């Protein structure tokens, strides 16, 4: 479904990614792990058109999307939850969700109902200002917003960052649930062990290049990967 082939990308003149290959199949759950500064988030931003495109190819469902702008890419069925500042904090829960479907003429009540169904606490608090909610609930709002257009692929950039440790497990459970409903997930995580345990396949990215690619469990079991990237 998503095919990244020999991608070079970066910011302005600075090239961060060198010849990165990546693939996500229909309904698959793929994790990108690797040390800080490896360019994990940059891969994700590049798919979403937020970096300077320098070469290679990004295809989604057979159509080339490299070099497109984010407002075009959402119409192709990709949802994106950035790592930071991923909510409109002064808006209510409901308004955040409505903005997620801005490109539609009508507010899709069924999509809102689906998000409320997935995260019942949000229905209870739909008129509350998101900035006044807990980190875990804000994370739900951010995911809910990205799910409003019912994307085929959800990009999650470090969803566990900034969450209290006891909430991280819940967050991963929520991602599993989203993936169980046939939405493919591409996740970037610092919490590499947990991400690899949960995902179908993983990529280890080092210095802007693919280093390893395998099933999540296989990567977890790999001596070299464990020693170099997962802290033993």
């Amino acid at each position, binding site marked *: 479904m998503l095919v990244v082939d020999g991608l070079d990308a970066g910011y302005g003149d600075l090239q961060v990614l060198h010849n990165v290959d990546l693939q996500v199949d229909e309904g698959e759950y793929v994790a990108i792990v690797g040390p800080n500064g490896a360019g994990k988030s940059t891969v994700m931003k590049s798919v979403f058109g937020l970096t300077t495109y320098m070469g290679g190819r990004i295809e989604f469902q057979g159509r080339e999307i490299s070099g497109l702008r984010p407002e075009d890419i959402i119409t192709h069925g990709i949802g994106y939850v950035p790592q930071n500042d991923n909510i409109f904090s002064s808006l209510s829960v409901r308004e955040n969700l409505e*903005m997620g479907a801005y490109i539609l003429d009508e507010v899709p009540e069924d999509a809102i109902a689906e998000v409320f169904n997935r995260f019942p606490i949000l229905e209870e608090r739909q008129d509350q200002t998101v900035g006044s909610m807990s980190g875990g609930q804000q994370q739900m709002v951010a995911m809910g917003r990205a799910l409003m257009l019912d994307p085929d692929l959800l990009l999650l950039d470090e969803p566990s960052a900034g969450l209290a440790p006891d909430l991280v497990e819940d967050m991963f459970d929520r991602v599993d649930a989203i993936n169980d409903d046939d939405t493919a997930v591409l996740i970037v995580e610092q919490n590499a062990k947990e991400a690899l345990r949960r995902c179908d396949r993983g990529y280890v990215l080092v210095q802007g290049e693919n280093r390893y690619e395998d099933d999540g469990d296989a990567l977890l079991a790999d001596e070299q990967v464990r020693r170099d990237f997962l802290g033993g």
Partner: protein
Amino acid sequence: MGDVTDFTWEQWFGVLLLAGVGVLILDLLRRLAVGDLGASTLTTFLWRGLVDGLIVGLAAVGLSMTYSILRFANFSHGDLVTTGAFSGWTAVWVIGGLGAADLGSRLLLNADRSTSARALDVHVYAEPLAIVAGLVIAALVTILVALAIDRLVYRRMRDSGGIPLLIASVGVALVLRYLIVFLYGERTRGVVRSSPSIDHPLLFWTDGVVVHELIMVGSAVVLMVGLHVLLQYTKLGTAMRAMADNRDLALITGIPTERVILATWVIGAGLTGVAGYLIVLEQETLNFNTGWFLLLLIFAAVILGGIGSIYGAITGGLIIGLADNVMLVWISGDLTRVAAFMLMILILIFRPQGLFGGVETA
């Protein structure tokens, strides 16, 4: 919250400020009771404060909106006020003065000194249609000027940060102002006749209410309520608040940011032009500095309320207007503005984010 000893400086300041206001209100009541201060004098001060406050507030809303969406302090805002005033009143003179003076003189608002507001009989009873048309034209021309400036200057600098944009806006302010001087000249001229007033002892507390002020207050309130409804209950309004809140996220959510910016200019500049027009309706004269002199008060209102919040801007305008007038009870006229700005400075020191700070409402 918590023990008294836990108060932060900010909270202490709030307590002191409220206590001070409380003492002043008690003193007002005492003066009213012993007859030092006539009830009609006080209501006149309050009414004047409301009129001044709404003028400043309406003009401040536009500045606050462009700040929250475009992230820069627009120093040409005062000259947009002037643009609205000149264009609106030119329309009134052209439409209302038909036959009373030649077109050239009316087009340039009597730059040749061959006629006068008296000769044209410009006031609301004599020229109701022209007055309404002027208000609409003031909004339209100001919107067009603001959009042209955005297209020519600000759009090219969208991502260059607040300071370069601010400096560019100072340049724009000077260009606008001296274009107005080039067309209309530097002279201060009266463009409106004294307003008729309604005397009605049962309806109104004072001797009579000036009709032009009534129109001004009514228009300002209607526009502010309209803006509130737009921001809170429409898709565009929500998108404006979303973009003020988090521009990057708005972009990746698919909100058409350039279109929101366009809407911001249309609404912000429209309100600003109307504010300029109404100011002149109320004060009856104008010159090329009308808006520039007002800009300081506008900034004060915006800062007082918390920059970026339109409700803060309205509140800030009202506080400044009321303080400026009600202070006359205790201090002489020359010093009331000192009091108003002292208040602003105090708030800046103890609550730098402004009264509504931290809550941006587009």
